[in-house]
């Protein structure tokens, strides 16, 4: 077990090293330096700039040094907790990223707090009545909600709840829970169907097993069979799925945050990528990869921990 964790952590470090190096090489290309200049000084100003002035501008930004030098400096800074400075916002990247991650974290907390109970309850209700009306209705709803992409869910919710009824603000520009209701609802509606279907499949499989039949035939009350025997065995698989949703959520928040103009992680990354803001993209990507790999690790380890039949040798 410890060996497995160490192996995965080593793999993660290797992946992050490769990723950061590739990003550095990409953003070091003359094309991106030019894009950065255009974004910062304006296209007209760059067009009239002489070669010498351009070189001077590059030097003032610290961009004219060879790539290995820059990369080395960046890694050195990283080791000391310095993520570099943002070209676009002229702020410390660590501070920027931290603020964005907290905002996205609030979003993610509410998404999980709502999504997990809804998905598990509907999944179990469908699974214990496999093939009946209850199951078919829930399965249909979960397929329907999963089929509507986030962008469409966001639009439909905004149009009806914000524009039509006027209950909620259409844009998440502001503090307070009321501003994050629509983004959270969007993410929950899109996500719960998948987890519910996984739960349903797992519960349905356990329901057909020998020991459940034995328990029912022994005369144990139905409710007790479900609570003690079915759920305990059936909720292992959904656990891994739920942890892996964290990875998915990092993709999902980009479009939701941009649509609702919520200043979180996804919007920060997109803005920085479009601007050519290397250090922000670098830090945000590494944070995303870190969360993604860590969630995979947690789901693997948690699965072995919960299911005594599976042990990694």
């Amino acid at each position: 077990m410890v060996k497995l964790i160490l192996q995965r952590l080593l793999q993660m470090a290797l992946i992050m090293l490769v990723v950061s190096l590739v990003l550095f090489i990409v953003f070091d290309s003359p094309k991106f330096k030019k894009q950065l200049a255009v974004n910062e000084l304006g296209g007209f100003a760059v067009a009239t700039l002489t070669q010498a002035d351009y070189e001077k501008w590059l030097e003032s930004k610290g961009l004219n040094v060879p790539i290995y030098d820059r990369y080395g400096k960046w890694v050195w800074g990283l080791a000391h907790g310095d993520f570099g400075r943002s070209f676009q916002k002229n702020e410390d990247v660590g501070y920027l990223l931290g603020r964005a991650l907290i905002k996205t974290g609030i979003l993610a907390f509410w998404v999980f707090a709502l999504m997990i109970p809804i998905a598990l309850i509907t999944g179990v209700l469908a699974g214990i009545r496999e093939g009946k009306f209850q199951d078919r209705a829930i399965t249909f709803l979960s397929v329907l909600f999963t089929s509507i992409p986030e962008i469409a869910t966001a639009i439909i919710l905004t149009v009806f709840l914000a524009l039509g009824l006027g209950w909620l603000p259409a844009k998440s520009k502001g503090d307070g829970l009321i501003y994050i209701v629509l983004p959270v609802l969007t993410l929950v509606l899109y996500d719960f169907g998948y987890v519910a279907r996984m739960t349903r499949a797992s519960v349905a499989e356990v329901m057909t097993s020998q020991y459940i039949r034995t328990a029912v035939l022994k005369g144990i009350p139905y409710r007790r069979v479900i609570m003690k025997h079915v759920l305990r065995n059936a909720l292992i698989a959904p656990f891994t799925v739920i942890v892996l949703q964290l990875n998915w959520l990092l993709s999902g928040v980009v479009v939701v945050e941009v649509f609702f103009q919520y200043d979180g992680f996804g919007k920060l990354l997109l803005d920085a990528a479009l601007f050519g803001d290397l250090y922000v993209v670098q830090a945000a990507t590494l944070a995303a990869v870190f969360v993604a790999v860590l969630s995979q690790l947690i789901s693997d380890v948690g699965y072995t921990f919960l299911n005594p039949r599976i042990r990694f040798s």
Partner: protein
Amino acid sequence: MAVVTAPAAMPSRPLLARLAEPRGFLLLILLMWVPLVAYVMFKQYFGDYAQYVLLPAIPAALLLYATAAWTWRESPIAVIGATLVFLWLVLAITAPYLPLLDPNKPVAPFVTPFSEKNGVFYWLGTDTRGRDMLSRTIWGCQRVIVWGITATVVAYVVGTMLGLIAGYLGGWWDQVVSFFANVLLSFPVMILFILILNYLGPSGFNIVIAVTFSSAPAIMRIVRGLALDVKTRDYIFAAQTRGESALWIMLIELLPNVRGPLIVDACLRLGYTTVAITTLTFLGLGLQPPDPDWGLMIKEASSTALVWKFSYMLLIPALSVSSLILGFNLMADGLREMSMRD
């Protein structure tokens, strides 16, 4: 064209059964697909002939739908899904022949749906710049479908080849391919899209590349697992004993025997890719204006149409893309159910 349409009028049962064979089915798909791709991607090279390019695709698409509906008749879910998908597909193919207004020409701004202005009846109204929404939705569907399916197919070709190599050849091939797949899989998908498209620049062909990078590793994993399972079967040993080459065994012996799960996955992935293209265009990284597509319609309306009265500008593309994805997902569900029953 006449050759294709004429037999459709004959008693349909034996014909559909014959078309449902892999060879007939593939022929129909090619007959429908090649003109559509040629029309969308290489329109400028055809000159005056561009308007005839799509003609053979119309009967092919209708016949394909009839064949699919007949083959899947046991599963109503799959037929409903196929109906939704083919509805959009036929609209995409027939777009140049439908009596539509020019999708890029402003005629009358802010006309609400189902109303008349200047003697023209607008079914879906017009957008903020006065362009006809109905025509934009249908022309947009053409671009979304063509790029979505092309990207998925390319990702599948690459992913399947890598998966077969990793699974069948094994050894250090497997190590190398699996390591790169793991690197790519540890990115959240949307972030990978943003990074790649930001580097390559926004365009249809670059979307194909980005989708290949993000989907091929997952496809490779599925194929690798299936190949590992199948490669110990007797017919593979028989082929090896006959002295068939590794490439031949992979493509002719292995691949057809793992097609079941792959077709289901492909249907789901078509949905993901379509969503991805719409979303990327919305984020400003996908297909470029002025030609319409659903993501662009959402992008343009999301800043200007945030009023109840004009919300149809957002709702129409949103519902269009949802219905197409629903079609793909229902198709995948029905196919999975049927494969489990066998």
